[in-house]
């Protein structure tokens, strides 16, 4: 099975380890992973700020980059969901809409791909420690990926999961929201960090780098002793 990695601009720039773990994880299950080098950013920062025309330029670049792929897999619910939005965003350009539809249909979030396409529920990984999982909003509410991360994490040997209080609540990231409404965003992430603290977990696990950077940045500022991990890092841990 040929899989193209959609790295996301955040993982590419800030957490390349997440990309490495994603590649290794997929290869472990027999996927032939390639990395289309002309991929950039999904366009979400512009799209969610109302700059649709600017976002469309990014979308078209991404469509060109992934058109030839059999499957596209990315370690982010939010960025994958953005690709799912492409056909709708390009509805006024029939040719591009069709091309967008083809890419959207073969694009999956990592845990979704493992569970729904590869039918893997136990990745045979081992990770010692207590952790809490934050289900990010776009992954759960928009992309509809609710169970896959939980199923996979529950099967990780040695991992003790503690439920995060008010886990459905947004961490306050919201892309450009964290910049435009920084003060409100700061209050939201503070509350989230408090809930993480209440669990007593050593690790915070999530499936979206943006949210993790937000929560991690807050806990770093608060000198909270919680390590932040992307789910790919835990699933690829031996």
């Amino acid at each position, binding site marked *: 099975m040929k899989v193209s990695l959609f*790295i996301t*601009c955040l*993982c*590419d*720039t*800030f*957490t*390349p380890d997440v*990309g*490495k773990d994603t*590649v290794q994880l997929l290869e472990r299950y027999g996927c032939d992973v390639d990395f289309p*080098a*002309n991929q*950039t*950013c999904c*366009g979400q*920062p*512009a799209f*969610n*700020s*109302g*700059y*649709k*025309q*600017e*976002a469309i*330029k990014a979308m078209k*670049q991404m469509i060109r980059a992934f058109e030839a792929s059999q499957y596209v897999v990315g370690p982010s619910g939010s960025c994958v969901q953005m690709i799912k939005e492409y056909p709708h965003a390009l509805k006024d350009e029939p040719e591009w809409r069709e091309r967008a539809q083809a890419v959207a249909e073969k694009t999956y979030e990592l845990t979704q791909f493992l569970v729904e396409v590869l039918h893997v529920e136990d990745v045979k990984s081992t990770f010692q420690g207590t952790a809490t999982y934050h289900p990010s*909003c*776009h992954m759960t*509410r*928009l992309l509809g990926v609710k169970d896959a991360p939980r199923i996979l994490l529950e099967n990780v040997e040695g991992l003790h999961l503690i439920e995060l209080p008010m886990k*459905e*609540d*947004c961490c*306050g*990231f*919201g892309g450009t*929201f*964290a*910049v*435009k*409404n*920084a*003060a*409100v*965003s*700061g*209050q*939201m*992430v*503070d*509350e989230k960090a408090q809930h993480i603290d209440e669990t007593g977990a050593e690790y915070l696990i999530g499936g979206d780098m943006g949210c993790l*950077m*937000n929560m*991690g*940045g*807050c806990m*770093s*500022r608060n000198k909270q002793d919680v390590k932040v991990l992307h789910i790919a890092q835990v699933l690829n841990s031996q």
Partner: protein
Amino acid sequence: MGIKIGDKPYAERIQAGIENSFMRQAVSSAQGRFRSGRLKAAEELGDWEDWRTLGEEIRHHTMENLDYYLHQLSEQVEKRGGTVFFAETAEEANAYVQEVAKKKQARKVVKSKSMVTEEIGLNEALEKSGCEVVESDLGEWILQLDEDPPSHIVTPALHKNKEQIRETFANKKGYTKTDQPEELAAFAREQLRKDFLEADLGVTGCNFAVAESGAVTLVTNEGNARMVTSLPDTHIAVMGMERVVPTWEELEVVVSLLTRAAVGQKLTSYITALTGTRLEDETDGPEDFHLVIVDNGRLKILGTEFQSALHCIRCAACINACPVYRHVGGHSYGSIYPGPIGAVLTPLLDGYEDHKDLPYASTLCAACTEACPVKIPLHEHLIRHREIIVEREQRGAKSEEWMMKGFAKWASTPAAYKMSTKMARTAMKPWTKDEQIEKGPGPLKGWTESRDFPAPAKKNFREWYKQREKRRGEA
């Protein structure tokens, strides 16, 4: 009062909200109660998603045929002795009510809770023409005594605690007892009883009007709406033009959705349906009944991509689910319609000029869309508002516009993208300490005021991948 509350700019309102720790505590605990109530009531019903779909279909069908149902409604109301007035604007609606009050030589008006009368500023209009207006919903009465606007569409005084309420009662009405809710409520009841008996005119809102019978329904918990509609000789109901259902059958569905989504109740204490004036052989009801159907900007939403915003049944489930609302409170929105639905509706009804910041007061987490009992895609409407603000209204900040133009260039030119991710670490070096940026430049300034930002990695993913491929090729 009108839809807009206060003149403070958005940033100041938000800051004031954040600093009001008491209000935030009150909002947070109320949200918790409402949310768990809603989820429990939904679970109890069993097939909540089917109910939501049905609710959406009913509202959609009604909006698609609004002219038909409003016509039917007005015919039925008139057949049963009522008078119907279509008001295009807030001014027209107020002028009509003032005119009725004048004809009746009304001096005292009692009201039950109604958001649309807040929207059109009816109290001020009636006071201007010499009437004394008394709000009889407990929350609204407290706010009226305090001259404070509502901060929530279902529980308008959500931002106040019992101690503050006791103080208000003591200062404005000479209350001498404790801040026990029972004592406070008993005092309000005692005070309001006199007003009910003296009132010449009763004004209510309308949760839903039933087109097939001309009935106006009111959903309450305090029973005050029954006093307002049965004691004074004249009853005026004011409704937003979208608040109609075809028949009793649809009413059952939307009321079930409303009470469950709003407060987690199967039904509220009182659901009142009022059909026409008092007939000769009847003992109850007003001699004179008027239904004022208010457009005030709604008609122009019909037929647009925002039409589903008119589906709203004013349950506030989106407000109760919203994490932004929790931290800033209702007054921060600067509109009597706060929260996600307020951020969608307010610019539609009152324009972008005063409300262009509202669509950005959301992380687009979609908790609102998920909570909405009639499936309004609230977060999508917020994005669409942002597009209009930027593209049609040209109201985006210049600096942001340049940044986004730069973004488009960057994201559509792989060479530029590759170069920048490679250079990111070096570029951020002046601000980096121990792999964290504690005080960032430009757009990162706000972020780093309350949290750290990570330094870009030493080697980005694509470099690692390229080297791996190279090694593999050599092997």
